[in-house]
């Protein structure tokens, strides 16, 4: 097609008004469509895996091997609780890898949204601690697994050693202490708080589904509610509140205490006499994962020793790779509330027992009512 000086030729009368308008329309369509074309092209160039995870795992330190291999970090999408994540994926959100925990594992498998992991494709699989792999419900057929364990730890109390006076032993009573009314905090997710309530109420983990247990736990949660400053799913909120003294004790995971200590805030991660809540989280691959090879790269990267060192040292979480622990002596580990034999820690605390979807719905309904003051 020959290129014409449109304005010039119109002035010269060589081109009709109608033709000019038509060419203008063509130009308009072209300009509007141009970004669509480039977006598609860009997506094809940087097709990274999407990792749907908890806040705090979206950092380059955990993806050094991934970046070496693929040039870029994976894409991240963040959730505040694993129930929220499952609901979002059931609503049609497709990711490559997600990050549930042991208590949700059977329900996540049941949802039919995930595919078994072929462990022979993971170079670090040989070093993964077997006791973390053999979680209830993790066995898929022919030696494959549903979940590749990645991190484990505890839900306990982080408290300010200078502001909180411990009476006797460390205990869950600290978060029910009326002396510090309005200066205590809690995680908002029932997946943590309700189970900690069970420990406080003295309900055994395998009895948590009974009606009697429900009432007992609801009663302690109601008792705690007026003492709390706020419930939040955002650990940063709790960490900032602890650092400023707005809160003196809060229910947190290991990482909050480790992060605060690194900043020089006088805090301690309690080992309550009733036992802490213990959990193992891991990685699952979506059944329609668009970048399946890179999904395996994400998992392999998270299971690597580099990531493990970072998890232990900077976050204070346990890692699933045996070799990650070789860098740390027993004293450092026990200071972090960890051990190179996870069964020591997981066995000493209360390990969550997976529940049915009906139970989760009922528990969350009741817990929301309690949080709102009923």
């Amino acid at each position, binding site marked *: 097609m020959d290129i014409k000086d449109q304005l010039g030729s119109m002035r010269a009368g060589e081109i009709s008004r*109608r033709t000019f308008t038509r060419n203008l329309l063509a130009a308009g369509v072209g300009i509007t469509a141009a970004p669509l074309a480039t977006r598609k092209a860009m997506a094809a160039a940087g097709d990274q895996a999407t990792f749907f995870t908890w806040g705090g795992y979206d950092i380059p330190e955990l993806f050094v091997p991934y970046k070496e291999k693929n040039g870029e970090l994976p894409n991240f999408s963040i959730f505040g609780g694993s*129930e929220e994540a499952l*609901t979002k994926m059931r609503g049609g959100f497709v990711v490559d890898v997600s990050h549930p925990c042991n208590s949700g594992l059977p329900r996540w498998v049941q949802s039919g949204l995930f595919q078994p992991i072929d462990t022979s494709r993971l170079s670090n699989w040989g070093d993964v601690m077997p006791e973390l792999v053999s979680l209830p419900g993790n066995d898929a057929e022919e030696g494959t697994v549903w979940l590749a364990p990645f991190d484990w730890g505890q839900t306990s109390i982080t408290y300010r050693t200078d502001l909180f006076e411990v009476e006797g032993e460390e205990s869950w009573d600290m978060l029910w202490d009326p002396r510090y009314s309005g200066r205590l905090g809690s995680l908002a997710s029932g997946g943590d708080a309700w189970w900690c309530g069970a420990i406080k109420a003295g309900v055994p983990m395998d009895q948590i589904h009974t009606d009697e247990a429900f009432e007992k736990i609801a009663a302690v949660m109601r008792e705690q509610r007026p003492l709390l400053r706020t419930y939040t799913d955002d650990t940063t909120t709790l960490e900032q509140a602890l650092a400023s003294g*707005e809160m003196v004790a809060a229910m947190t995971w290991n990482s909050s205490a480790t992060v605060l200590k690194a900043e020089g805030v006088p805090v301690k991660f309690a080992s309550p006499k009733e036992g802490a809540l213990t959990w193992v989280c891991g990685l699952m691959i979506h059944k329609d994962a668009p970048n399946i090879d890179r999904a395996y790269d994400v998992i392999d990267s998270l299971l690597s020793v580099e990531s493990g060192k970072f998890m232990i040292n900077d976050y204070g979480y346990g890692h699933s790779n045996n070799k990650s622990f070789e860098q740390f002596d027993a004293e450092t580990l026990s200071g972090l509330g960890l051990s190179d034999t996870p069964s020591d820690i997981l066995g000493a605390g209360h390990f969550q027992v997976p529940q049915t979807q009906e139970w989760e719905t009922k528990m969350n309904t009741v817990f*929301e009512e309690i949080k709102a003051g009923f």
Partner: protein
Amino acid sequence: MSDQTLQTRSAPVATQATAGRFGRLMQRSEAARGYALLAPSLIFLGVLILVPFGILLVMSFWTASGFGFDTGFTTANYQKFFERPIYTALLNRSLFISGMVTVFTVLLCYPMAYYVAFHVHRHKMLWIVLMTLPFWTSYLLRVFAWKVVLGYEGVINSALMNMGLIEAPLEFLLYSQQAVIITLAHAWAAFAILPLYVSLEKIDKSLLEAATDLGDGPVRRFFRITLPLSLPGVISASLLIFIPTTGDYITPALLGGPDGAMIGNLIQKQFGPINNWPMGAALSIILMLCIATISLVFILLTLFVRKRVS
């Protein structure tokens, strides 16, 4: 290349024919012209609002079972709404909070709009743009900024402590209903200033002069002329603020604390961790009905008052 020339040759014939038929229809019927103009909005409304609304309505009569839905028709969700106190309490709290937000926002924005409409004579547009300047940042950022302002070691508390007015930080500032009201009143102010300004600007200044000539003082003149004539602006500003803030979710989630939670938070939880979508749908429908009723009563009431005044 040759294809293209062929196409361009045959195209005008075809377009002329369709344009002719379409044009005749447009000329003949005024209604058709109207519908043609409305078509984009009608399609938008139909596809993006009415269809989801229908889905929501149907779903609200289902029940959740495990991961799926029991699609048998039941009004159980609506019964549950009235049986369990949490739902009505949160709804009432939401209506109260956004009612307060509406009142405060309109009261705060009216003087600003009044000033620009009557006392600024040059660069009015610049003033309006400057007033909406804070709203160029993201809504979420503004809400979060309020968290910093109201926080335990926030701007207000540190200022008061430095001045020696208080010993310990004021804790009621954050994680309370007040925090939600303050933040929403600021976050939605632009939506009040603009309609108020437009209705004040339209007031015929000669009416004000006439009132003064006939012996009204400034206060009487305001209540007899300016306020009634600016009521359409007040009504639209109130509705523009009341309707979206009732269902607001992020402000109470970040600043409300346990006592400041609103119905929007509960609806989100139903679709999230609680995983009871039918109940969430029922709550949304009830919320919509409530807002519609209140808005209707409000409009009728102001119309009635306006008639009485004039």
